[in-house]
């Protein structure tokens, strides 16, 4: 495909790779226009922010597990001054810690990993394109996320501390500086997310256009690998949902800095004193806007993970994915229904209870396509020849942990039961089962699976398996007891639960969770180590170390600039494993079997 950009952008004709000018180091590695390099850049940035978010989680857990005790040296050195005094975490610092933990994880770790890394790296390769539709826009999408991340990091260390209103940033708490005591930190939070929103929207435009326009000949929509379907649908969600968040944040920043009253009702007082010049605003407006974005957002984080899991399960069971069309329609169903469930975050908000019933119905219904996917994954395993590689282990963890996370969602979907468990640790348990147990395990699976295509070497499988097992066990020890805490009435976002006589007896559970979380956090260093270690020491591999069918495995590892010497022609779907038409137990999409060449010629002659 020819790119339609400025003259300085090298054009890629079929046999002319060696004709374009040599790129400088800065052009090749820093401001690269190659989707694979940009994907790898997103990988490193998302892993960095995963560590930042993880460190903040350990701050939260330290306070809950060992209340009032100083964070042990040398870890107290990285604590912002506003968070702790002499290493002892302070109440406002605690509020900032869980706010920034979630913010970094959602916006700077999971989203960039699922979409920035996998979307960028996989979409052109798996559809047989040389690059994305808009390579410059792609490069900008990454480089705009960098100042957003820097702003967010800076906000941790400035005077007054970081944002402390929760990642959900409810108004009026977050709309008036005096309510949290946080000034610039909260403003930087908003500005950073506005900048990041631009990055995400740019990426979304690129993925949608690339999938619609740049598929190789024979690559019909229903022959696309499931990761591409997932990312395509996710990109549509991104495009429509992010502007809503951006609008809400603009309104919030205006309330904070320009004396507007989008979210401030009349009669508001601060420290018992009536505020001046407030009125006409609605606190619930913030919640509706935020969650109208926020619910599609969580599907943005899980759908690519589901696509990756489908791919890896099929490859390592050596079987076609069970129910390919059902899987595609489920992705579409989840995405569509995801727009009409946002009120389930607001059942107890003061919203009209009849509206609550409406959202309960839609929320119950959205459980069905997710259930269909789980059953289809089980069907994929049935009758297989299962290989327990590191990617497969992590993908299997996704299936099992997502099932737990999804089932715990049913409790919250029931408006009456939600009355009890809303804003308790039951919710925190659910969130982490789907985001860590779900998205992050899929991230580990995808990175270890596509690493050889990125770098030409395998990640060390022994380290990979040790990392997997420690993570899997420590993950369950950390997050399953949170359901117990929630059932016991333990609220979330509470600096010191021992204030409540009804919660003091749960302290041992909190301590156990903290110890498990520390093990879990440090175990991730194994994964990071493996990535860097294997860059130099990993086993070198050829085109197709996994014997997989999708187009990226027909070209060298690592893939070269422009991807394909000759744009491939696609003859069948991506999941023809153990086909009787092939001697091997796999059949690449671009390798025709008897009659397929003729069939394509006939279709193309019409």
């Amino acid at each position, binding site marked *: 495909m020819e790119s339609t950009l400025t003259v300085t952008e090298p054009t890629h004709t079929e046999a002319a790779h060696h004709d374009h000018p040599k790129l400088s180091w800065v052009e090749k590695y820093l401001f690269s226009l190659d989707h694979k390099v940009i994907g790898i850049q997103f990988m490193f940035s998302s892993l960095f922010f995963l560590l930042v978010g993880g460190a903040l989680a350990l701050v939260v857990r330290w306070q809950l597990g060992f209340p009032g005790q100083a964070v042990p040296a040398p870890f107290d050195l990285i604590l912002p001054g506003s968070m702790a005094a002499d290493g002892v975490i302070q109440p406002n610092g605690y509020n900032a810690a869980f706010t920034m933990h979630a913010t970094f994880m959602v916006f700077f770790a999971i989203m960039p990993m699922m979409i920035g890394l996998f979307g960028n790296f996989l979409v052109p390769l798996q559809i047989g394109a040389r690059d994305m539709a808009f390579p410059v826009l792609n490069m900008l999408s990454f480089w705009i996320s960098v100042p957003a991340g820097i702003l967010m990091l800076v906000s941790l260390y400035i005077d007054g501390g970081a944002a402390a209103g929760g990642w959900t940033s409810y108004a009026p708490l977050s709309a008036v500086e005096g309510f949290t005591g946080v000034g610039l930190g909260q403003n930087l939070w908003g500005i950073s997310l506005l900048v990041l929103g631009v990055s995400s929207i740019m990426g979304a435009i690129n993925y949608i256009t690339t999938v619609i326009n740049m598929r190789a000949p024979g690559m019909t929509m229903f022959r696309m690998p499931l990761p591409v379907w997932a990312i395509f649908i996710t990109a549509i969600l991104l495009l429509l949902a992010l502007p809503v968040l951006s609008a809400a944040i603009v309104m919030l920043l205006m309330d904070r800095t320009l004396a507007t009253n989008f979210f401030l009702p009349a009669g508001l007082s601060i420290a018992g004193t009536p505020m001046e010049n407030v009125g006409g605003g609605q606190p619930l407006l913030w919640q509706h806007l935020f969650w109208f974005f926020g619910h599609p957002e969580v599907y943005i984080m899980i759908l690519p993970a589901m696509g990756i899991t489908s791919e890896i399960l099929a490859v390592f069971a050596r*079987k076609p994915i069970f129910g390919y069309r059902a899987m595609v329609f489920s992705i579409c169903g989840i995405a569509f229904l995801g727009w009409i469930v946002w009120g389930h975050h607001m059942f107890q908000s003061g919203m009209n209870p009849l509206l609550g019933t409406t959202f309960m119905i839609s929320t119950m219904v959205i459980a069905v396509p997710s259930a269909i996917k789980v059953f289809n994954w089980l069907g994929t395993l049935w009758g297989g020849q299962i290989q327990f590689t590191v990617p497969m282990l992590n993908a299997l963890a996704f299936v099992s942990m997502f099932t737990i996370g999804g089932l715990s969602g049913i409790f919250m979907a029931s408006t009456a039961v939600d009355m009890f468990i809303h804003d308790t640790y039951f919710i925190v348990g659910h969130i982490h089962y789907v985001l860590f147990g779900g998205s992050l395990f899929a991230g580990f699976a995808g990175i270890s699976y596509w690493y050889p295509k990125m770098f030409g070497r395998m990640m060390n499988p022994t380290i990979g398996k040790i990392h997997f097992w420690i993570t899997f066990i420590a993950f369950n020890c950390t997050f399953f007891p949170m359901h117990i805490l929630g059932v016991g009435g333990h609220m979330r976002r509470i600096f010191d639960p021992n204030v409540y*006589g009804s919660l003091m007896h749960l302290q041992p559970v909190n301590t156990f969770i903290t110890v498990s979380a520390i093990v879990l956090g440090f175990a991730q260093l194994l994964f990071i180590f493996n990535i860097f270690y294997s860059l130099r020491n990993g086993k070198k591999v050829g085109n197709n170390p996994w014997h997989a069918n999708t187009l990226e495995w027909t070209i060298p590892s690592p893939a070269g600039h422009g991807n394909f010497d000759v744009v491939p022609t696609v003859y069948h779907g991506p999941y023809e494993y153990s086909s009787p038409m092939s001697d091997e137990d796999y059949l690449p999409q671009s390798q025709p079997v008897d009659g397929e060449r003729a069939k394509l010629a006939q279709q193309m002659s019409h």
Partner: protein
Amino acid sequence: MNNRLRTFIAGAVTFLCGAAVLLAQDVPEQVTARYTRWWLPDEATAIAGKIDDLFYIILWITSVVLVLVFAVMLVFLFRYRRRTGRRAVYYHGNTRLEIIWTVIPALIVIALGIVSRQLWAEIKSQAPTEEDALVINVRPRQFQWDIFYAGADGKFDTPDDIATINQLHVPSGRNVLVHLTAQDVIHSFFVPEFRIKQDAVPGMMTQIWFNVPNPGAYEIACAELCGLGHYRMRGYITVHSADDFSAWYSEQMQKKAVELAPPPAADTAAAAPADTAGAATADTSASVSQADTSATNP
């Protein structure tokens, strides 16, 4: 331990705690004593019992599904692990199975939705009206629960309103309707043993009701992040027997009346009309100290 036995023990312990509270007339330390389970707290109201029943129904269904999925998965992982000389089954899917495992989960969630809707309606749409309940205004602010009773005139926002901070007193066996309005940010009124939770939002009024059959002592927790002191926004509910509540309420009204009475005049001639020890007088003496009392209502 079955439900009834658990409820009986909870009720007995609650009653004993309640008795101790009334004797002690103080913040109940006994609130800690009865919490040892790493599970649902005591059910102190009928609605709590119904919510728990629904919780257990969902727990049962999700546990069965979870066990089934995991069992099938483990069996498949063992049975279909790679062995030499085998080829995987070349099988793309089964439409009938797809229909079955779409319809059955759909039926289950629809059933759960219907049951949930009924309980939700009982809690929300069928809440007692102001005529059927003791109405209490709770106005949380950073970081305390400002609680108001209508007082002798039966009307709110009048000078004889009885105000407490963090101390909610209610009679047992009677509907209590709490009207919530936050003063600054969103807070949330949460009583675990009643299983009730309702956000208190500034600029609007929300409500929650409960009916506690037996005297006892409970904590109020704030369940919506409201700032620095969110974690220490603990309140107390003392559920009195009907008689004890009347006694407490009368005492509060008397104290209020004394507070509102104009200061005793120097000569005895003016002393008589100033005798407001009785409950019902509100007009003249009230207007004198109106500016005063409204300042004490934050």
